[in-house]
């Protein structure tokens, strides 16, 4: 049926990835198209909806049972939907070398490294535990959404299968899912689990960075810490330069007195550079107003961060 939005959805997705089927068969390739996931969900949602419509038409099983079957299918369909995973090291093994017991005493020349690996492994376990809690709450929210959806279906079943009815079903499901998700997401337990996931991820990344920096130092490669130190020194120097230049400007009181003079001309070009690092954008830059005049080109002040 050409007007079926779900078929359109699939056909549309196929345009983005002609090998959708092949990609589905090879999990590693499913990321090849953003739309492959949509296509898959659309196909399964449409199949479940059709089963529901068929059941409703045949009046067997009872409408309530059909609605329950339908909502269970949807809940299953969205079970892996985890928007709260902020991708901290997703897919990684945790970074700890295999065989290192989490609580084993760290001894010998590599003591510091052993401890770092243990901390990484501990952080990884915290990430996994927090993610499990989030998944459980997500699953509970879906269950709640499904129950609400089933109740709404039972209360006002759609008249007949049509693209419009299908779309309304989908929108109704999204409403239920969003409401249930919102309730879960606002809960203390969800906020705690999300924070724990992020905080553990931060700990894990910090240990990983330290580990990589250690290797970089061994190879005499520049490290991020060194670059940060340099950047902070540059910033500090910039601030010193600005302070010096500001001190060399006329005092505020003097400027005020000057500007209070009748028909005062604009401040001298040199003095008009209110911010030492600032400049007019390009030599041609001028306000449209003929009276207005930007800070002078000649007076372009030092701009320490010009290349930043």
């Amino acid at each position, binding site marked *: 049926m050409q007007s079926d*939005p779900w078929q359109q959805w699939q056909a549309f997705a196929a345009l983005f990835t002609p090998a959708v089927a092949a990609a589905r068969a090879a999990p590693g390739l499913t990321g090849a198209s953003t739309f492959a996931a949509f296509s898959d969900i659309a196909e399964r949602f449409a199949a479940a909806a059709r089963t529901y419509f068929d059941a409703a038409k045949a009046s067997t099983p009872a409408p309530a049972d059909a609605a329950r079957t339908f909502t269970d299918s949807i809940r299953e369909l969205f079970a892996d939907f985890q928007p709260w995973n902020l*991708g901290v090291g997703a897919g990684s093994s945790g970074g700890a070398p295999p065989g290192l017991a989490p609580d084993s005493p760290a001894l010998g020349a590599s003591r510091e490294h052993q401890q770092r690996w243990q901390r990484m492994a501990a952080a990884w376990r915290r990430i996994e535990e927090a993610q499990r809690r989030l998944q459980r709450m997500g699953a509970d929210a879906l269950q709640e959404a499904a129950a609400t959806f089933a109740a709404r279906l039972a209360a006002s079943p759609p008249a007949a299968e049509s693209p419009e009815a299908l*779309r309304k079903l989908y929108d109704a499901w999204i409403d239920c899912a969003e409401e249930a998700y919102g309730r879960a997401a606002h809960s203390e337990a969800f906020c705690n689990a999300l924070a724990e996931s*992020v905080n553990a991820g931060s700990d894990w990344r910090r240990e990983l960075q330290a580990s990589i920096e250690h290797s970089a130092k061994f190879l005499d490669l520049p490290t991020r810490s060194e670059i940060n130190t340099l950047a902070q020194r540059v910033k500090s120097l910039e601030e010193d330069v600005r302070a010096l230049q500001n001190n060399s400007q006329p005092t505020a009181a003097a400027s005020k007195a000057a500007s209070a003079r009748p028909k005062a001309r604009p401040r001298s070009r040199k003095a008009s550079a209110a*911010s030492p690092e600032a*400049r*007019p954008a390009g030599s041609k830059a001028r306000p449209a*107003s003929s009276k207005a005049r930007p800070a002078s080109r000649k007076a372009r002040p030092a701009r320490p961060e010009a290349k*930043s």
Partner: protein
Amino acid sequence: MTAMPLYEALVAARHCTAGCSEKQAVWESGKAKLYRYRSIARPAVAAPLLIVYALVNRPYMMDLQEDRSLIRGLLAQGLDVYLIDWGYPDGADRFTTLADYIDRHLAGCVRYILQAHRLEALNVLGVCQGGVLSLCLAALYPQHVKNLITMVTPVDFHTPADLLSKWVRKIDVAAWVGDGNVSGDTLNQLFLSLMPFRLMQQKYVDLMSGSTDRARIENFMRVEQWIFDSPDQTGAAFREFVAWFYQENRFVQYRLEISGRKVDLRDLKLPILNLIGKRDHLVPPAASAALQRLTGSKDYTALEFDLGHIGMYISARAQHEVPPAIARWLAAR
């Protein structure tokens, strides 16, 4: 509608770009650039209007396309419009703080405009996070800000409906940021997670269910570009923003300091117009409306629109209602 015309329409629209009003860069500081828009109507208000957009998204949302441009609407009202574009920070900007943004870049823009126009004070329109920066500016440089307009601006960060605030309150933001920047992708994922079913699924079903009308598809693509064209955030400023506002709610506690100077909203005596989106899921109405009880202004006006966060910039309704409301309010002062 079949899939192929939609696909073709999307392909045709894939290079369409946002921005429709003519503008000129007039001043810059670091990666921040100040633009002045070319006027399209007879001047109505003497003092120019500086738009301060958020750091977390690109400011072209204010001038998306001809029929969806708040800036165009403001120009049509005869306003002299400037806009500060914060640019795309990179790793070398990681130590840029909120004080740098406010005292150097933003205050620098203000000084440039005032000097160019030989004025003592100008009008400021702060949008979302830019509204927070504008409130700080007005408190720190009261002599330079004549009238302040805040649009979908959070002031009380601990209102019950503020999901983002609840999420980040227990996060160790210093550890999360580390010494680096915060990627725009991470923030996008966070924002999408606030309403994942609508923003990550239903939106695309809507796209596929509607017409392949070129204007509609191009509008969709421009908004899509804006949503995901998110600059990285400088680590230092992001850390401060989350800690000071989302976690410690310093505006409400009256204990915000920038560069060692107190930012107290009670010191704001200037006229304030607060534009609030009643269906804003990012900045709940109560988070914005709190400004009334926190500010010392005796000339405070709040206007609520039945719009969401993004709808406040680009909905057809916003085009008809928001710029005239701003222009009327400014003209009366």
